């Protein structure tokens, strides 16, 4: 039995959680059609049951009650712990998102069992061996998870959030687990306006224009910002840029910044260090602009322009204006 913790937002189940369901389906198939159960917690948007049916989830537990009105990692893990016992699940997994990693780590600590973060595939079922991302995805680790329950999270972008070939009729249960006061001590007491999550625009942008040390200084960003504006995109930067204080951290792309997956990423004056690559590897197409034809960003890109970004980017902006009249 597989038990998933799935996250929802105002639109439905999050993309990365649906990717996790896709992974669970492949695990289920490899195990001969193991049932997939899922826990969803707190207030839900409409249509979650139908959506999860379309993605092949057999049974959903909707956890609610006063204790679950706001997020508390320990309480959410306590609910998952109870559901695991009730269902006898041998696998408990979630998305490799901040919440997913946090809730599964709580569960791992409570059960005193191992946890594998950011799994991309399984290398074997008996014994259960998973392959997971380490060093921000620049290397992989095969890890033995031959302990029950096996706890792990599924790395973002490793699977596609495809629907199941056949929808299933999803059973639905409302549950209100007991929560010990100690599990509510660290709890979200206030949530500020959504606008404050300033990296959102970057994470969901269809086009990202990137800028690194090659920008030369805090005044070197006008042209890249203008290009991003003309393409309806967002600005993303390297860590050198944020640690020199040229741009704010919420614009940083990489292992310790945002992970982006745009249709087109245009890194300008960025060398392509593995930690930067960790954040942009899921871009569909990369067009690098760099003075160095040997820079890793250039050799890994789909397209490149070799040259000074302070000449190339303004010229591209001008050409866009010219063609648009």
């Amino acid at each position, binding site marked *: 039995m597989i038990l998933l913790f799935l996250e929802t937002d105002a639109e439905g189940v999050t993309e990365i959680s649906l990717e996790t369901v896709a992974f669970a389906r492949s695990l289920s198939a490899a195990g001969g059609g193991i049932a997939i159960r899922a826990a969803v917690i707190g207030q839900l948007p409409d249509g979650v049951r139908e959506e999860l049916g379309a993605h092949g989830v057999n049974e959903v537990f909707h956890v609610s009650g006063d204790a679950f009105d706001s997020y508390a*990692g*320990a309480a959410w893990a306590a609910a998952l712990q109870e559901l695991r016992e009730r269902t006898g699940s041998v696998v408990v997994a979630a998305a490799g998102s*901040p*919440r997913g*990693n*946090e809730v599964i780590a709580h569960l*791992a*600590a409570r059960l005193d069992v*191992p946890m594998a*973060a950011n799994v991309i595939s399984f*290398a074997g079922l008996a014994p259960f061996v998973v*392959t997971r*991302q*380490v*060093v*921000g995805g620049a*290397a992989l*680790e*095969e890890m033995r998870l031959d302990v029950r329950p096996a706890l792990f*999270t599924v790395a973002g972008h490793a699977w596609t959030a495809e629907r199941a070939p056949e929808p299933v009729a999803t059973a639905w249960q409302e549950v209100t687990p007991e929560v010990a006061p*100690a599990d509510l*001590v*660290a709890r*979200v*007491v206030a*949530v*500020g306006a*959504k*606008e*404050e*999550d300033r990296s959102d625009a970057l994470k969901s942008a269809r*086009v990202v224009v990137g800028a690194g040390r090659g920008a030369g200084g805090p005044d070197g960003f006008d042209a890249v910002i203008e290009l991003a504006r003309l*393409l*309806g*995109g967002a600005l993303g930067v390297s*860590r050198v840029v944020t640690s020199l*204080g040229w741009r704010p*951290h*919420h614009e*940083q792309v990489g292992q*310790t*910044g945002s992970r982006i997956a745009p*249709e*087109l990423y245009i890194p300008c004056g960025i060398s*392509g*260090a*593995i*930690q930067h690559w960790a954040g942009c590897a899921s871009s569909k197409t990369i*067009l690098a602009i760099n003075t160095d034809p040997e820079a890793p960003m250039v*050799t890994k890109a*789909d*397209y*490149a*322009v*070799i*040259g000074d970004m302070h000449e*190339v980017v*303004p*010229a591209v902006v001008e050409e*866009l204006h010219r063609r648009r009249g």
Partner: protein
Amino acid sequence: MTETPGAGLQVLVCIKRVPDSSSQILLTEDAQAVDGRHVGFTVSPHEECAVELAIRLADATGGRVTVLTVGPPEAVDQLRNALALGCGAAVHVEADPARLGPADVAREIAAVVQEHQQAGTSYDLVLLGNDAADSGDFQVGIRLAYALGRPVVNGTSTLEVADGVLTAHVDGPAGAETYSVPLPAVATVLEGGVEPRYPTIKGRMAAKKVAVEQRAPVTEPQGPRRVRLLLPPPSPSTVEVLGEGSAAASAVVDLFEKLGVGR
């Protein structure tokens, strides 16, 4: 609460020595670890920010920061760097990190916290990074909190302490979240809320004089359950160079049109 009742905050901050690979990763011969011998070593930016937050909290209250690492003998370099920034004491649990799993590390840190408490130093707050830069287990801080029976806030980037209460801010999925938890507590830190300071020469000199507390692990490690590390196969470069300098502008805009972006 601390050595002298009413004195400032006692903060423990945990850092991990990791390879500073930037362009290419190499593995050790046994494929159990990333080989850092040719690239040098560093700590995660998350932990740099944890150190910065710890120093600010201790300075504001007249308290003290103790920096801890579980690592090889050379990890003393990372402790000295943290001392140079303003940490007041350092603890080195000497062990090969490739042989430890995250549960082992949490257990070792918990043992130090508990022993120091018996010796008269209670840490009001333990700060860690959200995830280690190499193994990326995303769990040591949470396991530590359970081992100590303390509340934990995960993924905070700014925090304050007043009247024995930690207020921590997290960039959550639905907006800026606030936690408010009583001390003693554990928090894991994400880069971005503060800019880590640089060491001063005076700081570097002072750091040399601090005696690092050397310890041996207290438990036999369960290990990381690692079969092996692998590197993704190198993909041959298929880059198409559109041109050089501003002369390439027209080819670039052609590409935008082909990809259907920006309309």
